[in-house]
């Protein structure tokens, strides 16, 4: 494969990588899939309100508020439901998108051994590889509109509802 073609291939893979889900939380704040079953905390949440954005651990819901703890216990906020435009839950850290990218790249390069067949097999690698990468990045991500907020309660630290003891520590989110 000529250098130019290789550059084009890498360029396309990078372009499609840009289509992957971007997550504001760092790896330390979001568990890998295998860690989720024994994680005592809520999932990562990103809320977009009428005035600002807030992200952190999803503590739970009440009739009036969505509770978000920013940076693990530093500050608990109660975001009025009326203020919320949309919410995004990240259940686990989508590991492996880099591996899938490398897998795709090597898959395409491996088609050099297919002779004429690479005319078919190389695009097939891209057709499956790139959507797989993008799909993987969105696997743990669930988006909710304002009306659907109740559906996300299962991802909260307190799916049964936020205990009063905790609610009392919350600050109303008004930036």
């Amino acid at each position, binding site marked *: 494969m000529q250098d130019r073609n290789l550059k084009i291939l890498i360029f396309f893979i990078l372009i499609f990588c840009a289509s992957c889900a971007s997550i504001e939380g760092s790896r330390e704040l979001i568990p890998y899939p295998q860690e*989720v079953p024994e994680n005592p905390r809520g999932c990562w949440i990103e809320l977009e309100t009428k005035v600002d954005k807030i992200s952190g651990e999803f503590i739970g819901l009440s009739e009036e508020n969505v509770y978000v703890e920013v940076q693990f216990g530093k500050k608990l906020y109660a975001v009025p439901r009326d203020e919320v435009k949309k919410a995004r839950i990240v259940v686990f850290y989508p590991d*492996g998108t880099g591996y899938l990218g490398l*897998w795709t790249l090597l898959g395409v390069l491996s088609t*050099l051994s297919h002779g004429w067949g690479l005319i078919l097999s190389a695009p097939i690698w891209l057709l499956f*590889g790139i959507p797989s*990468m993008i799909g993987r990045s969105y696997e743990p991500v669930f988006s909710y509109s304002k009306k659907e907020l109740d559906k996300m309660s299962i991802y909260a630290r307190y799916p049964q509802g936020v205990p009063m003891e905790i609610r009392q520590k919350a600050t109303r989110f008004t930036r």
Partner: protein
Amino acid sequence: MRKILFNLFFFPIFLVINFTSCNLYTVEKKIYPPQLASQVAKIGDKSPFLKVHMKDGGLYILKSWKIDEENKTIKGRGIYYSIDRNSTEEKDLFIIDLESVALLETNVLKRSGAVTAMTLVTGASVALTVYCLANPKACFGSCPTFYVWDGDSLRLQAEGFTSSVAPALEADDIDALYHAKSYNDELTLEVRNEALETHVIRYADLLVVPKGKNSRVYVTPNGKFFESDRILSLTSAKASEGDILPLILKPDGKERFSLADEKYLGEREDIEIEFLVKPGKNYGLVIGRRLTLLSTFLFYQVLAYMGNDAGYWLAQIGNYKNQGKFDRFKKAVEKFNGIEILVHRDGEWKSIGIIDGEGPLATNFNIVLLDKVDSDTLRVKLRMTKGAIRLDYVALAEISKEVEPIVIKPYSVLYDKKESPESLSSLLDSEKVLVTFPGDVYKLKYRLPKIEKDKDFEFFLKARGYYLEWIRKEWLEEENPLLLAEVIFSPEQALRRLAPKFKSVEAEMEKQFWGSKYARP
């Protein structure tokens, strides 16, 4: 080289990534009220942990648990987290009253859908790779390929100097660019190196023949050009399988071919065709054909037998002491790859010559002169090796006159979309050569002469050069001078011995090589 790279470098990394990526999981989270604890019990080990959310906000995460429905309790080993999750307590046995439980949560790990998709593609791709490694003679392989615009898109229309597999075999080669169309008084040829070969091109000239709008010009195998303004279609075409007329009536890429014989690869077959003609006219038989992969298989097999000594053996071709042996071998190859034409005259079949086979990629069109015909029905037999030829088109051309082509040299050569004066100079100077390597693509531009409005051009490519096949690693394992000697001195015996080997790959070889239809004319 590419396959060696794949074996040594990519394949192990591929396996590591594959293995790692197989461990990509997604999580299916479910919540149950305590009244449905029995459903949680059914999930069992699928969820590695059970989360028990208490009404007061506390949380148990149990690694092993049992739901006692009779006593309405959950017993298990694990960790208790306080309401604020800051303090923990670990116990081998917690007994939790279901009455105080708010919700039960399971998290089942499932294989990522992305991995499933990639695993499917990898499986198919590895299968193809393994096939190519196991049957290297089924993959790669072509001479310099020439692509020309056909009025719609670039189409593979010629393979240059197919038989010139060594410097000593450097030769001229004329190919009809049967579907070529010019644009803005120019014609552009795209010459590609699409195989693991080194191509050495001495020149690539365009031959143009002015002709009537409704005429066609054909070239004989020995390089003479004849114009015909009346083309007669077949009235009958029969092969062993029956009527094949629809397959060879038009030059449309629909081809007639047969499978090789199971016991002897040199087995011959006949196709009988008929035309309605006017007695006293001069006719030429027009044939559009290309080879199947049988000849490619045999050629690569011979190279495999040569193994590490391939360079030595190929050099022997140029040794005048071996000329006699080589000429005999060459004739045997021509007979194997060619089509013998027999005409029915005076109650018997008379052979009027053999039209050479060319490569397996581009359909090559030639005319063979038949002299005057003295009856109103012309019967012709095409005799060829079973499974060796793909026949696209057969017609009869009424010869109008012999014509001379105009030779046009390229005026510009582009490499990587940039002008390449060095490459142009190589093609214009007969002392120099243009050497191309796998993946190279050159665009050669030609200016066409002025022509009368009621005329048109027929295009041909005249190229000279040779190519060197790269010996694949897999072939070296088959190095065998004795079997090479058998091929040279007793080709019939070799064709019998190799029959089962070819038949075992024949179907897949064609399917794989042509699966993309990329190179089909």
